[in-house]
């Protein structure tokens, strides 16, 4: 089995998520039926999207394993490969290598807990996968709270689904934008500020936080204030990756490889690592 060989797949649908056009969600379907059936991933894992002639990029899987038959990836246009991906059309071939990484422990440590999902900007992707998975197995989890913010209303991801989740009564959803905006009647304020206002209880709690390092840095104090411990907080780290299987050496943060030992770590584990991410 060659771990560098991607599954052959095809782009099935493309949705432009944000008003500036820089974020698109790609629906990808594996060509081979057996591979499609066999695919199973844990929310929080990622896959390498391979564009022959351009390269590979590690992208978090935005769809839950319960959404069978296809995979969703929300990709930001940043470098060579993502720019090429953004120029592709429905029907174009693409490779998928995965699932890679460790994912959130949804079937073990997180079961039975009160879940707080906190996300900023376009880091919400793998948390969408996690949230949908948890909603499909609702009885396995306690209270679920979602705090998600973006710079402007146009930069929010999954806008239709956000509305559906807000309407549900089995979860608490707080959507915020950084500044006032015309037509926006929701919360206004940075994610850490809203977290400070919501004050989620740490009792039997687990917090899943994804976002730019600066957002995580400022979100911790309001949580710590109400008693959250580092072992209850789960973070998803990012780093430059190439092989995705812990060999090529690019993604190491001290002794751990973000692609293989991570990308999900508890804050307690992260505190023991050198700050190289």
């Amino acid at each position, binding site marked *: 089995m060659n771990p560098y060989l991607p599954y052959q797949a095809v782009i099935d649908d493309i949705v432009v998520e944000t008003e500036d056009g820089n974020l698109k969600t790609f629906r990808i379907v594996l060509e081979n039926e057996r591979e499609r059936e066999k695919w199973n991933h844990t929310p929080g894992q990622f896959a390498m999207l391979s564009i022959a002639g351009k390269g*590979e990029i590690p992208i978090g899987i935005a769809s839950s394993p319960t959404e069978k038959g296809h995979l969703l990836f929300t990709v930001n246009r940043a470098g060579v490969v993502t720019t090429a991906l953004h120029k592709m059309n429905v029907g174009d071939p693409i490779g998928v290598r995965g699932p890679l990484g460790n994912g959130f422990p949804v079937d073990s440590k997180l079961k039975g807990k009160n879940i707080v999902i906190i996300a900023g900007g376009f880091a919400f992707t793998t948390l969408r996968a996690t949230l949908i998975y948890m909603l499909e197995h609702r009885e396995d989890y306690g209270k679920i709270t979602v705090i998600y913010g973006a710079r402007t209303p146009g930069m929010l991801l999954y806008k239709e689904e956000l509305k559906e989740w807000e309407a549900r009564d089995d979860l608490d959803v707080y959507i915020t934008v950084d500044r006032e905006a015309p037509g926006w009647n929701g919360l206004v304020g940075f994610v850490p500020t809203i977290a400070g206002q919501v004050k989620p209880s740490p009792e039997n709690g687990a917090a899943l936080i994804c976002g730019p390092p600066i957002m995580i840095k400022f979100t911790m104090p309001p949580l710590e204030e109400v008693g959250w411990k580092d072992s209850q907080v789960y973070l998803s780290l990012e780093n430059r990756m*190439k092989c995705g299987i812990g060999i090529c050496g690019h993604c190491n943060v001290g*002794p751990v490889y973000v692609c293989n030992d991570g990308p999900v770590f508890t804050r307690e584990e992260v505190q023991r690592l050198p700050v190289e991410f």
Partner: protein
Amino acid sequence: MKPFVVEKAQLGDLIDALSKEYEVFGPAQTDKGYYDWQRLDGDRLPEFNNGVTKSSIKTFFFPQPEVLFEFKARANEPDAFRLKEPQCDSATTLLFGVRPCDARSVTLNSMPYANDPYFQKRVSDTVIIGLLCSEGCSTCFCKWIGGSPTGKEGMDVAAIELDDVFFLEPISEKGQQILENVAPVRSPLEKEHEAAEHFLEKAKAQEGTQDTASTLRSKELMHLYEAGFWKQVSEPCINCGTCTFLCPTCYCFDIQDETLRGKGRRIRYWDSCMFPLFTQHASGHNPRGDKLKRVRNRFMHKLKYFPDRFGPVSCVGCGRCVRDCPVNIDIRQVLRTMLEL
């Protein structure tokens, strides 16, 4: 296993015989003066200097560029942009005269590369005939780091250079098979057995007993990481890739796609953690943009993270980095400092 000898005068015949089945490589003087791996045959014999070759043997297990996949790069072709594994090149390689440090590096590299089919295939397709060292040179330090000048780890056959012959001791089944089926080897004489024994005893007398790996494993990671001496170590570094590319146990690589006239290939080639681009994110953020972080990371990886994960230290003491670092950053000094912290 049954040992053999080959007369030095008949070394050419032996290489010739081996060349029928293998692509034979061995150390020889290059026209730039230093000794490095060259293709051998009955006329081109190995030349041994007292010390290691300029580059290590990792180029045989980990060539650069290594083609991972091939694909057609024109959109109108029937299976365009589908990655296919390259046609296997079935040539088997024989390396003649590998020092114990280099042979050991193959075993060490196999640990992180356990699931890498390309590397593993080359390991199984390559025969290593090692040459034990009578003494080290001024820059090597294998005894310090878990190796030994008479170490046989990673070899298929271990050779000892005596006065008139090479004493050949098979270490693996593969090695035994080869020696039994090739001319012009013969059984050793009594005095040759004795000479080989004497060689090994003399070398053993020089061995050290330090267990550097377990001392390093026992140190606390952040204590080593936050030590103050890294500033002075990293100050002269010019961030080239000399240490990483000459090192037998540095194994980081980069993967790139290249296309030319409708044909494409996904290749991997050696990358160096000394280059600032190594950890550069597409967003512009660089976790190890600082020279000190990069230098520290390399030593911490080889001397702490790797032994913590796999056991032995990721260094075989060959001394190439010591000899060729343009600014004389000496891993022996770093190691000494880390052991004393």
